[in-house]
């Protein structure tokens, strides 16, 4: 059941904003490549770990569906017997395309390139994320295990399992919220939807408790909201670098790295007049440096209008 919210909060998104999200993963697989033995995606040329945009969107959708009990369109729904529901059953949940849009937060956020029969639509999502990339080279390890239960009745023993995982990866995601894409396509994307999405990014990442994702921790979430029409800085994720005494592949913990935000802070200050405010949530275990000195990100952004994200 959807949560009741005061109508005053149902404000349509009117401003451009950029999203920057840092999270890390320990001894797990942030995003397997289904065509490569489900190995973590690694850019062979640079050793950088890659996570697709759809993995992050899945995290957000699952969180909003499972924890916030919101309607999500791109989700597998099951009937009482635990079987996946058919298209007709799922169709019956929504009467018209408008109904679909009003109910499903994920269509308002991420669009839908195709939809159900007779309700076909091609909507570009106002929110778009790039592929996430680790800020350092990663190591990949191969783990062999055994299962205790045999797969068939007449077998005497279990079998071997195998999986690939990353001992550590600190990943940066970057995204844009485009108010025009929402307005011109009549997607009623609200400020509340964005807050819910940010909550999904932060809490969903932390709450993904599965064999391959347990060990994910959100570290930094920032939404830079602009006041000037159509202006945005761009590529915020490229304005941070990871600093560590340890070789990238050997990093195993957030305490072993510092994030240099000198360029990020400089860009934000350069365009201070065009920024309405910055919403920010920071995990206490991440350290930042600016101009070669330790700093807190809040102090570094002193002078800009900062608002704590309470998720």
């Amino acid at each position, binding site marked *: 059941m959807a949560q009741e919210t005061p109508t005053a909060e149902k404000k349509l998104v009117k401003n451009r904003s950029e999203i920057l999200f840092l999270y890390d993963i320990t001894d797990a697989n942030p995003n397997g490549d*289904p065509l490569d033995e489900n190995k973590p995606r690694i850019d062979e040329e640079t050793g950088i770990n890659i996570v697709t945009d759809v993995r992050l969107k899945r995290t957000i959708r699952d969180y909003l569906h499972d924890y916030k009990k919101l309607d999500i369109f*791109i989700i597998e729904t099951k009937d009482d017997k635990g079987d996946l529901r058919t298209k007709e059953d799922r169709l019956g949940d929504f009467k018209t395309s408008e109904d679909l849009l009003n109910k499903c937060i994920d269509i308002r956020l991420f669009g839908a390139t195709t939809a159900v029969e007779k309700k076909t639509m*091609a909507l570009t999502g106002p929110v778009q994320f790039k*592929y996430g990339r680790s800020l350092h080279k990663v190591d990949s390890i191969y783990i062999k295990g055994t299962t205790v239960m045999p797969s068939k009745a007449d077998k005497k023993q279990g079998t071997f399992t195998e999986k690939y995982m990353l001992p550590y990866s600190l990943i940066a995601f970057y995204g*844009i919220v485009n108010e*025009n*894409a929402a307005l011109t396509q009549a997607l009623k994307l609200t400020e509340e939807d964005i807050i819910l999405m940010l909550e999904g990014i932060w809490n969903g990442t932390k709450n993904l408790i599965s064999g391959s994702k347990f060990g994910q921790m959100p570290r930094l979430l920032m939404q830079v909201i602009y006041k000037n029409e*159509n202006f945005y800085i*761009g590529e915020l994720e490229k304005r941070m670098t990871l600093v560590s005494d340890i070789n990238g592949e050997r990093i195993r913990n957030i305490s072993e790295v510092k994030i240099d935000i000198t360029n990020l802070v400089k860009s934000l200050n350069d365009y201070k007049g065009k920024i309405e405010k910055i919403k920010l949530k920071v995990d206490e275990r991440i350290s930042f440096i600016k101009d070669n000195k330790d700093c807190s990100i809040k102090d570094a952004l002193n002078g800009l209008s900062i608002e704590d994200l309470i998720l």
Partner: protein
Amino acid sequence: MKVLAFNIWGDYAHFRKFYTTSSPLTFSFPPPSTIAGILGAIYGAGKEEYLDIFSSQRCHIAIKIINPVKKIRMGINLINTKGNFWIPYGNQYHEPRTQIRTEFVKEPSYMVYVNHQDPKIFDTLCKNIKEHKSFYTVSLGLSELLADFEYAGIYNSEETLSNDELTELCTPVIITNLISDGLGIEEGKKYFKEKMPIIMNQKRIVGKYDDVIFEPEGNTIKARVKTYHKLENGENIVFF
């Protein structure tokens, strides 16, 4: 005429070749119709109108490869949407999901040259690019392949007709613009040819395909062409 030049780049790009469906390959650089979409995003033209507004009759487009073209393949998990709707369960005919190895251009970076007949549209485009404003989100082929852009300059250009001499060109050349035997092959350069849509109307119907010759490392090509444009910064470009 005035030509606006701006740089556009990203982490990855995918400009799907029209003859590849289930194993999508990418062009090395965006075809004119894709560039029209990028210009439309910056200017504020929607999906239904950008191919009209930035059609070849009204708008000249050229592109220069900046970063050497590198292509990689990644596995992408797709959902079944046969019949234009999503089917989240499998049956005897198909699986709910399918994994497709997709080709991407890695670290793409290009210089786009553009002139528009309508001074109003041209000025808005120049202003938006100068001020780093974009009406819609700019991407390189797929919505998640977000791109960034930067203004490079506005140059006067002069249309130059062939004088039968080899001209050093910094953009890919359409084969029909070449005078026969017009390519001056140089040592140490690579010459690639890709067939791409050159003219596409608003209904996404291609009016003309043509072979385009380019140097994948971003070097210049020496060629005898029917027409080219000489920019005041010294570069010679050929519009699509």
